């Protein structure tokens, strides 16, 4: 596969390490009342879609950016690639 890195352009997927579902960005608040339940869901519950999937890839043999790649798990078509940091900020992780 070829991942179109937002900074470096098209790169072979061999340069990357795969992590998993991009919802791992949404780490819960440890002080929430039901923190244990939220962390359980955060860590263990995943959708397993046949189709579009937002997932985390680490450019380990490149610039060490974490990326959020939107990929169709059936066709392997890559629909969007974003810097995970931008996604994290957009999801309210700037504190």
């Amino acid at each position, binding site marked *: 596969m070829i991942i179109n890195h937002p900074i470096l352009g098209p790169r072979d997927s061999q340069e990357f390490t795969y*992590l998993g579902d991009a919802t791992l960005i949404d*780490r819960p608040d440890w002080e929430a009342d039901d923190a244990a339940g939220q*962390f359980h869901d955060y860590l263990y519950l995943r959708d397993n879609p046949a189709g579009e999937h937002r997932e*985390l890839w680490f450019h380990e043999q490149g610039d*060490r950016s*974490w990326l959020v790649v939107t990929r169709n798990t059936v066709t*392997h078509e890559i629909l969007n690639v974003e810097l995970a940091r931008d996604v*994290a*900020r957009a999801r309210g*992780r700037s504190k």
Partner: protein
Amino acid sequence: MTDAVMNAGTVAFQADGSTGARKGVQVNRLDGGLIKGSKALNFTFDGKRYKGFEGDTLASALLANGVRLMGRSFKYHRPRGVLTSGSEEPNALVELRSGGRQEPNTRATVAELYDGLEANSQNRWPSLKHDFMAVNDRFSNFLTAGFYYKTFMWPAAFWEKLYEPIIRKAAGLGSISFEDDPDAYDKGFLHCDLLVIGAGPTGLMAALTAGRAGAQVVIADEDFLLGGRLNAETFGIGDLTGAAWVEQAQAELASMPNVRVMPRTSIIGAYDHGIYGAVERTADHVLAPETGKPRQILWRIYSKRAMLAAGATERPIAFENNDRPGVMLAGAVRAYANRWAVTPDQTVAVFTNNDDGHRTAADLIAKGVKVTAVIDTRADAPKVDGAELFAGAQVVDTKGRLGLEWARVRLANGTTRDVPCGALAVSGGWNPNVHLTCHQRGRPAWREDIAAFVPAGTLPQNMSVAGAANGDFSTAAALRAGAEGAVAALSELGIEAKAGDLPEAEDAPINVTPFWYVKEGKGRAWLDQQNDVTVKDVKLAHQENFRSVEHLKRYTTLGMATDQGKTSNMGGLAIMAELAGKQIPEVGTTMFRPPYTPVSFGVMAGRSVGEEFRPTRKTPSHKWAEEQGAEFVEVGQWLRAQWFPKAGETHWRQSVDREVLQTRNSVGICDVTTLGKIDVQGKDAAAFLNKMYANAFAKLPVGKVRYGLMLREDGIAYDDGTAARFAEDHFVVTTTTANAVLVYRNMEFARQCLFPDMDVQLISTTEAWAQFAVAGPNARKLLQKVVDPEFDISNEAFPFMACGEVTVAGGCRARLFRISFSGELAYEIAVPTRYGDAMIRKLMEAGEEFGAVPYGTEALGVMRIEKGHAAGNELNGTTSALNLGMGRMVSKKKDCIGNTLSEREGMNQENALKLVGFKPVNAADPVQAGAHLMNADGEVSAATDQGYITSAAYSPVLGCSIGIGFLKSGDSRKGEVIRAVNPLEGKEVQVEVVSAHFVDPEGERLRG
């Protein structure tokens, strides 16, 4: 085509490079053809010498010499000859070359002849003509589909010990020499606008069209000669012969710097996003590769667009005894005659269900070969000049023990006629080579008018299909499809190309009436000759209710092995459809996976063999350690000194015990460079580390080091190390050797994904610093000789857990940490890696007066067990901080990775496992790592399990074996005697539960 090109084509081209008068040079050699040179090439087959010509394949040269018998079949050891003239060959598999270069299962049809070629037949003993295992053929009634599943089910133990070895010996293909392959294999990368797969008329026309438009083009063909079927047919293109047109096209392509022509290159797989795998056989056609040159290259081709122009494969018709040497595909017989100037025999008959088969008869007759009959299943078969035609007839049997002698024909009027023939050219129609279109999600569709599957469904991204591969079988259609396909593909890339005027070419319609197998006869009609699958086997599978084509394939083995059923799948599923009363499209076809043709392991491995299998990381003191005669051990990719044997030491334990005692009594030095090092800088560095470590770091003063434990988000401990604060905004973190990459990755994840606005930067400095542990009562005295005198490293100025930047050896910058893994007064000193070798020598020299020893990973391990320090065995992916006795370290006042879930009830049970030490009651007893702990009395069972021992060693300090491990409520059971059991080896040892800190439990030494 432009005039300029047409003119270029008139350059004198002589297909065979000489007079062409070779008739009879070898017994079945004809005149003409595309073989070159007048000098014969020598080769051997089963030790016998033969001659052939440049341009021959092993198969064509053997046929020229009258050799029809080339192998024995997989299961029944039936005599077999060559069926095809290409990579789809199921029968003629040979062992090529010998010694380290021996290669099994090579298809003789693609083995290019060279002077000195050495080939042997396979799967026969003692010889090809007299094969002992041919007795299998007599028992064929027992060896039907599913035979192995049905017969060898019981008893289970017999499978491994008895059945499998026998079957493996009896069945099977070629052998390997078990010698190292002396040749190199390479890997390479290519990028192009258009990849053209196949260099027949379609592919060449596409490459010409795209090349003229200035596009970056790669055109690859598995054959050593470009042209595809144009080399095998007699019809021309425009005013030129097919071969002459190819020569001209090739010359034009060679003149374009934007076109890369790759003969001898098989595209083996279509992968995601336009990536293709290709194997180029750069030196398989010579005796040995040139020095320094690879035998084969595995290419990864990144294409923006790809065109599959892979042509078509002819399919046979099944009839009784259709596997005798001499029964061949009609298109192959024609190819041998026209391209290689060879006929498989002087008398040939043709059996066909389509017009294409008639071409074989016509071409052979033109070459002066006697065609005894054309047997056409169609009642309305066209007339043949120069041969007898049996229309509406079928071949029902053949005779000839090691080679065909005659064929029995059932005529339309019901009578039979025996037709003498040494070769029978069979055509059941042509199948487009759809394979690569299926490598992702393509599902071929049935086309009734040509009675074949064509590419359909979702093709690999940006792939188009043209020519015979798409069901357009005529040459004119192929040229048109190639040109138009290239124009269309390039226009998607914004490159303007012109199809131009196409030359005149043959444009015969397809005229085929599906005919899969002859129903008459009680004997065996072979569908898949490579796996010895017959029509009966398919019927049996159907009878036993195998309904899906994929199940049929696996049950009968139809379509498996090196040819992947290229000539047999279609027949099998047509019969299955008939039996099920369905149409072929309802039954569907099996899918194709990479590789398209067999690929050698050598080219997959490339240069990653032997010592280069993976990178070897050497520590900065490696050379010095080698000089000391150290034993090394692989730790991940690192080579670390395991121990340093001295003269007179005959057992590793002697060396290790000495290293431990000398370190504890005076001073020892160990290279600890392999530990991961991460530089953490920024205003929020302390806050960030607070998130990473379970324990608190925010208040760590500058100039101090702290031990840190890292948890996974699920609360399990996964790594430990130290963080040293060199400035308010600068920490140096260490990790274990094994987790250096993972910890860095996780820290980057936290930094970018979880805390995106923290002001913190990370960089791995593992390889930037050479780091040495200096441990033992004399460690300080030794270091005071090395660290420059302006730095006070006295106990008062530089106490336990201090860190700082110093200089050594008169100005070389260094970092000093007062940390201890051994439990002794100890330091770690780091210098830039390039000074690592000098540093170890300097340290050893300074330590001479103290009798300083270097110690390796074994002594390191012994000392950390004596001290009760956790390492990989304890941080084993199942243990928490609580288990490790560090429960109170986990700060509850802050958020950190793993904090919340580490509080789960199940991980905080009253009787949780706790890390403790074990000493044998009888000092001579060994404590074994992996042993499970049981109460002093009671049964030994999983239900009564009390824990397990994780690490054990002989402690030279205590003079006995010791261990550490996890015991239920272990911290409150000290003094209790329990059992350490090893049921696997029937061992049981009484051990006393003790503190894990065997040596200096109060920690006085390391603070001294």
